[in-house]
């Protein structure tokens, strides 16, 4: 409960600041970043495992690790968005909303009960709609918020329906008791499909991905990066643990569903990503494809699979946030977000170019970046079931994804441009964030200990 309490305290501090004082934006940013750093550091010390409130709230080393990954991501997002927030008039509010969603995710991950899970999920998605609208003057931003709230309400509806059916079929909402009642009857399968659809909406699995690109494009870059990494990551954590514990008796059923969904997701995400010209939309579709790869890993349902998914999310935090960090900086200074704007980027901004390139290579899965290890282990855990068709399709899809990532690299290094993006100064906070990301991309892969540690905490069957 400690991590939740710290977040709540930070929320209150920021609220009081907004009401009681008249601090400058820079001061608020310093304070907020400092508090988030403290929050991250506190996540590593003095943790206790246990069960609270009649199994509503569970915490154990794995969950603490997952929360720490999210805290780290939050800190990076906050550091990166400082150049955008400095000019904004509602800085404390942004942080309050951001931390509310984080709090919701924490509760969601710790939930031992479907109701608690649902409350956490709602707490993590409703403030997000407000965040998506945070460029108050922009029409696209409010459109994105509207789309997000409607689709997310729809997903919540599906989830709730599923939850009520699960309750009807099993007579309980507590995860630990539910597993004993899961038999794979038709009502339960129906309930599971609804639950799965709800999850699929949140992590934008094809065919539930339609909101993704528009929301990503319209929302401010900071919110987009938050949505694509932290929000999806938290849902993935829960998804894996629910599948592997509660719905374990139905493994044969959901294996087939995930098999189809993952192939579709990779393929559609890839094919759409090829044609995108807006770099945010591009990253949206590439993130859909990445989710497809994660689903391949989940189908493995072994301890290796669970560990690989968490490991990949950690890597994904670093890689995607590094990419978004550059995009955020460019967009906040020049307002340019097209892929073609990045032509000749290397001539004017070599450092930013390398950061973006390393991030893209990591997303594509090219060694020695961590993305290579992440993807390799995901596909390997998928292959553990002996389904080589899935692996072959996924491996061949890597080529398509490779093409569109290289397209950006090609624009950066090789294409000529008469009006390249001018030379940008990198402020201290984004620089720090990029440094953390790049260091993470390189270290996480090459140092085997991190994976071993995650593995020692994971579970599978």
């Amino acid at each position: 409960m400690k991590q939740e309490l710290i977040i709540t305290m930070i929320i209150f501090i920021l609220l009081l600041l907004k009401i009681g004082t008249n601090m400058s934006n820079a001061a608020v940013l310093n304070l907020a970043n400092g508090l988030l750093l403290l929050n991250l550091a506190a996540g590593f010390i003095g943790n206790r495992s246990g069960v609270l409130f009649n199994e509503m709230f569970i915490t154990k080393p794995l969950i603490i690790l997952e929360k720490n990954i999210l805290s780290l991501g939050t800190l990076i997002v906050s550091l990166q968005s400082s150049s955008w927030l400095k000019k904004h008039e509602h800085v404390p509010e942004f942080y309050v909303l951001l931390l509310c969603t984080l709090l919701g995710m924490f509760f969601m991950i710790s939930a031992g009960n479907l109701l608690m899970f649902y409350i956490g999920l709602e707490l993590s998605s409703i403030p997000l709609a407000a965040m998506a609208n945070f460029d108050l003057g922009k029409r696209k931003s409010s459109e994105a918020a509207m789309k997000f709230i409607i689709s997310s309400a729809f997903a919540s509806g599906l989830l709730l329906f599923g939850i009520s059916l699960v309750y009807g079929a099993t007579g309980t909402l507590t995860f630990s008791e539910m597993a004993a009642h899961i038999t794979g009857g038709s009502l339960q399968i129906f309930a599971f499909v609804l639950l799965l659809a709800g999850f699929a909406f949140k992590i934008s699995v094809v065919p539930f991905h339609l909101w993704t690109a528009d929301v990503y494009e319209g929302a401010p870059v900071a919110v987009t990066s938050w949505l694509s990494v932290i929000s999806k990551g938290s849902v993935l954590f829960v998804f894996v643990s629910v599948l592997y514990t509660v719905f374990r008796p139905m493994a044969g059923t959901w294996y087939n569903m995930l098999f189809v969904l993952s192939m579709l997701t990779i393929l559609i995400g890839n094919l759409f990503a090829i044609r995108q010209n807006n770099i945010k939309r591009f990253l949206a579709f590439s993130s859909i494809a990445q989710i497809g790869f994660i689903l391949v890993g989940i189908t493995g349902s072994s301890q290796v699979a669970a560990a690989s998914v968490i490991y990949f999310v950690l890597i994904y935090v670093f890689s995607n946030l590094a990419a978004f960090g550059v995009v955020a900086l460019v967009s906040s200074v020049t307002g340019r977000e097209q892929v073609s704007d990045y032509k000749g980027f290397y001539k004017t901004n070599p450092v930013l170019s390398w950061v973006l390139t390393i991030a893209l290579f990591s997303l594509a899965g090219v060694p020695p970046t961590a993305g290579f290890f992440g993807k390799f282990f995901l596909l390997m855990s998928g292959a553990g079931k002996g389904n080589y068709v899935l692996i072959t399709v996924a491996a061949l899809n890597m080529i398509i994804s490779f093409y569109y990532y290289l397209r950006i690299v090609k624009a950066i290094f090789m294409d000529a441009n008469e009006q390249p993006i001018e030379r940008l100064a990198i402020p201290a906070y984004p620089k720090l964030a990029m440094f953390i990301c790049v260091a993470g991309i390189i270290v996480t892969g090459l140092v085997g200990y991190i994976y071993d540690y995650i593995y020692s905490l994971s579970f599978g069957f």
Partner: protein
Amino acid sequence: MFLSALIILPLVTAIALLLSNGVKCIRMVALVGSVVQLLYTFNLLFAYMEQRVVDGSPMLFEEDHVWYAPLNIHYHVGIDGISVAMILLTAFVTVAGMLVSWSMEKLSKEFFFLLTLLSMGAYGFFISLDLFTLFFFLEVAVIPKFLLIGIWGSGRKEYSAMKLALMLMGGSALVFVGLVGLYFNTQTINGVHTFGMLQIAQQRIPAEVQYIFFPFAFVGFGVFTALFPFHTWVPDGHSSAPTAASMFLAGISMKLGGYGCLRVATLLMPEAAHYYSWIIILLATIAIVYGALATMMQTDLKYINAYSSISHCGFVLLGIGMMTQTAIMGAVLQMVSHGLMTALFFAAIGMLYHRTHTRQVAQLGGLLKVMPFIASAFVIAGLCSLGLPGLSGFVAEVTVFMGSWQNADDWYRLATILACASIVITAVYILRAMGKVIMGPLQVQGASVQQDLIGDAAWNEKIAAGILITGIIAIGIAPFWLTELIGQ
């Protein structure tokens, strides 16, 4: 011997390159780094020769560290004679490549950095004994090629770079499936499978499993070494690449594929290799004959060498497909020989182009008069390519043919005869191009020019070519040291 030094030395060089400033400093660092690698490789060669007599084990200087314990992935390196030969080749070509790019002014830091990274990938690949480590280094070597061609290349460079990167990535995707398939079909020890090549070789994967995964691994590696019909990246990639990158590509990178086909596909899955050998031989023969015929039609010197590379790498695959000891020995010899020869060829073409600004055979003539050194290097490379006795190409090709003929099967012999016949075609295109370019009246870009306008090779180019020529002649005159090295 500390084998990991082969990875650490390029890595240190690469980091030093990042920290250094100014063209002079950068190229000095790159050169020193590659020379140190070369010296270390010689040291390794002698240590290996010495140790082998004492020690009977197949792999020497092994280092084994657990990398990812839950998946039983190791960082496991070790060498045998074949790896030593390939490492020597890599070191030679690296030094020559650095020297040839001495006058590289455009983004020189990045250029030498990527070249160093590429050689690191190659070294790592040749010393790996764990399939994961091997795959890791295989892919490390892909990205530098993309950037080298795309940034510093000429002609349709973006297209070529993308084509090469995607095809090689496709190859590695297939390799990936093959490796993972092998992994999950090894017997478990304490509940975990293994990527260790030595263990897999001992365990004998069941034949029906081999039949499934051999094509993945072989074709995957085959893409790297221009297996027909996956050779199409070769002409575009080689001709668009800057000189040093062409040398690395043809000299080292294509050998990654050949080595992988041999070490991973054939030696770990011998039953499947026998089962599919006729397909391999068919494809190799097509590559040899088709490559040679396609070369006849080329008018650009780089394209000539690129297409002839397809033909020459066909010999490597032919040797592997024939599966006799001699033939495989010939395949390895051919890899080394072709690596040196083609690197020399590309270096000479690069030097010619640097001075004449054209690579069209029709527009060049009589260059022997103005640049005797470069023209001689060019001739040596050409003669080696067509298999003149005394140069390395002859040794390698004869060994392949002898090994192939040992197969009594009529169809295999037919393939051997066809492959032999292709040498005649090789002689035609090589001699024709050479005669036009270096003999006859002096001609540059289709017009006659003053003699004193064009200079001969500079010191760096002389050393670069000299190193490669030394290698070619050393193998050609005294092949026994290399065959003995590999023979074990």
